[in-house]
């Protein structure tokens, strides 16, 4: 009974639709037909396709750079574990910071269930409960490295199986695991001060620590290489070819979703709000290296790259093509101006963050550091809100 009553009106509507089609074919003009339209916007569609292929080129270049930088990190870590010394530790830390620059810029490509979203948990999970991996003040036997009886043999499979097991903060791998192994627990303000001697024979479980650091670094390189391969040009069946075969508007919505989710829920929300409200230094993303400010600058730059369609690669591959800005200029020049200004304001707000981030968290509400953090939260959120509106301007279905 119910089914029939539901279908009666739908059959009626089918009839009406057909009727309108018949009338339209007979030349009868009705106000609800779209007779005034001048046909599809061919130039607009062409521009959209160029924006998408330029985007794919930016993603490709950014991941290639990230892989290259991570391989340099891997080499530096190889030097550290074969010859532990102040100099090799410093070089490894510098290589980590350099890899972060490229990786952070690639975060604008997250959040639409693309290649990175399948592996992000192994690449960039935080905040880490560091005693899950290695010793901390007051607990010299803590962590997988020191817990020989439970984990007699360290292996990639073991580390993967234990990553985020029984808790989001039980993180065993990725950039921040490496960061902790290079800098150590931040006991005092600023970065941690792990000694290179932790890797030298004589330190408790030095061999296991060296092995662990190698394992997680190799895994990071492999994961990023897999993602880069998925975005490489001219490879049939990889994600890039799938992305470029998507319906144009669906692919554009992915671009906007990526940057909008990064700026709002991620940067304004998870990266800054919790740290700001709780005033806890380990609530910042790079709490061991105290590098959170740079991450945010590069995240904001990654968004800017996507928006303007430009990307400056350190390996000399400068990509310059149409971006979302060009599409918005066609749709609503005034809005495009507002949007562009906010994209730049977000970069500026990130640059205005205090360098020693964890100390800035602690001050009173009116302290310059906290004011700057609050301003950055607002700038990233405003950016995200505008990106959601930009989708509307481009008639894209996007909900952030």
């Amino acid at each position: 009974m119910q089914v029939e009553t539901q279908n009666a009106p739908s059959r009626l509507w089918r009839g009406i639709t057909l009727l309108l089609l018949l009338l339209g074919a007979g030349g009868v003009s009705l106000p609800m037909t779209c007779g005034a339209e001048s046909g599809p916007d061919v130039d607009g569609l062409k521009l959209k396709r160029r924006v998408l292929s330029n985007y794919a080129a930016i993603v490709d270049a950014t991941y290639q750079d990230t892989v290259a930088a991570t391989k340099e990190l891997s080499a530096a870590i190889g030097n550290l574990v074969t010859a532990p010394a102040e100099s090799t530790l410093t070089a490894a830390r510098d290589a980590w910071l350099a890899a972060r620059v490229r990786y952070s810029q690639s975060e604008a490509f997250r959040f639409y269930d693309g290649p990175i979203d399948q592996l992000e948990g192994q690449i960039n999970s935080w905040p880490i409960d560091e005693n899950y991996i290695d010793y901390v003040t007051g607990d010299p036997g803590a962590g997988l490295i020191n817990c020989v009886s439970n984990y007699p043999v360290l292996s990639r499979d073991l580390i993967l199986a234990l990553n985020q097991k029984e808790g989001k903060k039980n993180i065993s791998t990725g950039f921040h695991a490496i960061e902790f192994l290079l800098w150590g627990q931040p006991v005092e303000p600023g970065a941690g001060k792990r000694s290179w001697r932790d890797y030298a024979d004589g330190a408790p479980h030095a061999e296991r620590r060296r092995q662990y650091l190698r394992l997680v670094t190799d895994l990071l390189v492999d994961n990023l290489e897999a993602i880069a391969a998925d975005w490489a040009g001219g490879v049939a069946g990889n994600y890039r070819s799938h992305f470029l075969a998507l319906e144009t508007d669906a692919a554009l919505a992915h671009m906007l979703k990526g940057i909008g989710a990064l700026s709002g829920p991620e940067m304004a929300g998870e990266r800054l709000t919790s740290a700001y409200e709780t005033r806890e230094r380990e609530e910042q993303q790079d709490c061991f290296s105290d590098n959170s400010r740079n991450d945010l600058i590069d995240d904001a730059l990654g968004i800017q790259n996507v928006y303007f369609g430009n990307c400056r690669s350190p390996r000399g591959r400068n990509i310059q093509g149409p971006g979302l800005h060009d599409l918005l200029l066609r749709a609503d020049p005034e809005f495009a101006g507002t949007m562009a200004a906010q994209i730049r304001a977000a970069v500026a707000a990130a640059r205005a963050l205090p360098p020693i981030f964890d100390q800035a968290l602690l001050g009173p509400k009116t302290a310059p550091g906290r004011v700057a953090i609050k301003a950055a939260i607002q700038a990233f959120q405003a950016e995200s809100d505008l990106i959601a509106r930009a989708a509307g301007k481009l008639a894209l279905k996007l909900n952030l």
Partner: protein
Amino acid sequence: MTGLNPLTAGWIRLLTVAGLAASLIGWAAAPEDIPRAEPGEELSGGNTTVFDASPKAFGFPARNMQDEEHRSAFFVGHSFFNNNWVVAPGATAGRDGLGPLFNTRSCSACHADDGRSRPPEPGQPMTSMFLRLSIPGSGPHRAPLPDPVYGGQIQGQAIPGVPPEAEVFVTYTEIPGAFADGEHFSLRKPEYTITRPGYGPFAAGLLTSPRVAPVMMGTGLLETVPVETLRALAAEQKRGGHGIAGHINTVWDSALGKSAPGRFGWKSEQPTVRQQVAAAFNGDIGITSSLAPAENHTAAETACANKASGGHPEISEDIFNAVVMYTRTLAVPARRGWTNPAVLRGKGLFTRIGCATCHIPQLQTGDSDLAELSHQTIRPYTDLLLHDLGEGLADHRPVFDAGGRDWRTPPLWGMGLVFKVNRHTCFLHDGRARNSAEAILWHGGEAEAAREQFRTLPKADRAALLDFLESL
């Protein structure tokens, strides 16, 4: 038809002609029970809905949450949801007070990425699910009577110096069955073994009930559905006959100090999200709150007495409020593939074979103190009512008005994303169903007729129905 003006009558004639034309070209010849995609049908959570089908799909704030304070609370809540609580006294005062008895150290340990937990592997003790305990009878406010020694649930872990309560293992027996077309299936029936009791014997006549952690999102919306709606649904089911008659659980609201309709938990034992969160902090992690201020052990568990506390209560009111806000405003992800012909066919079958009698496709929320949640058209696929699901699923452990065979209709929204987020498809209260088909096949009692209809559907129809569930 009297009183129609000539113009209208003319339209009707035209439409009749058009209808005939449509029939001639086969347009209107589609089977009668394939419903159309409704406008906005993909917005499972109304304006809170987020478009995300990634492994983080269950973790986003309501899309319509604009208020800066709400957003701040959401992200602080998120942080504490993921936080591992530590033994008191801890280095960070805001995060200590674990135990003395506990199941896990964080909410996220069971609700990984705000999602769903699963039973342990064979031979492994339970860590992300547990057994509820009671003894026959009922206590103050008609609540279940806890085991006098072990309390209301088995906590498998404890802080140093305190024995854990017990280890619980699960084994399965395969029960073969067949669809009407001859295709075989097998269902696994769980059996639980409690070993290494830390505090002596359990009470005679002990009642147990296994529980996995459900997906978090959407609870704030469900909290806002007016109780009148639930009563009307119960009345409608009764009127419809077919032996289906859901009922509301009347439970105890400890904040109000009076009885209230239950909505949350596998047996609808909690009336509000706030009380659910307080109960989970207290029972599962051992964290006291303003709403559940007593430590989570019985007087008989003397080894737990006088252990260092993480404060009174252990979770500050601000943080507790933030976690409640977080829980209430986690956004429901939009449907995928909701216009696909197979999915639409499955949607029609879902209604036709009777699933939608209890898994109500569409509800309306009422007034809420959170504007984001007020007056939303939501598609949760639940009636929030208790139903007798038969002997196969029975736990024989009553909770308030929920009998031993009763279970609350769980919302189905988001079920197609559980694999994406949590890498498993273990459904039902104890995760015994290994996929959605098995979950359907376990239905009995009031749902027996619907289950039999599913069992006797042709294979292609069963597949369409499962495609529909996958799109939720």
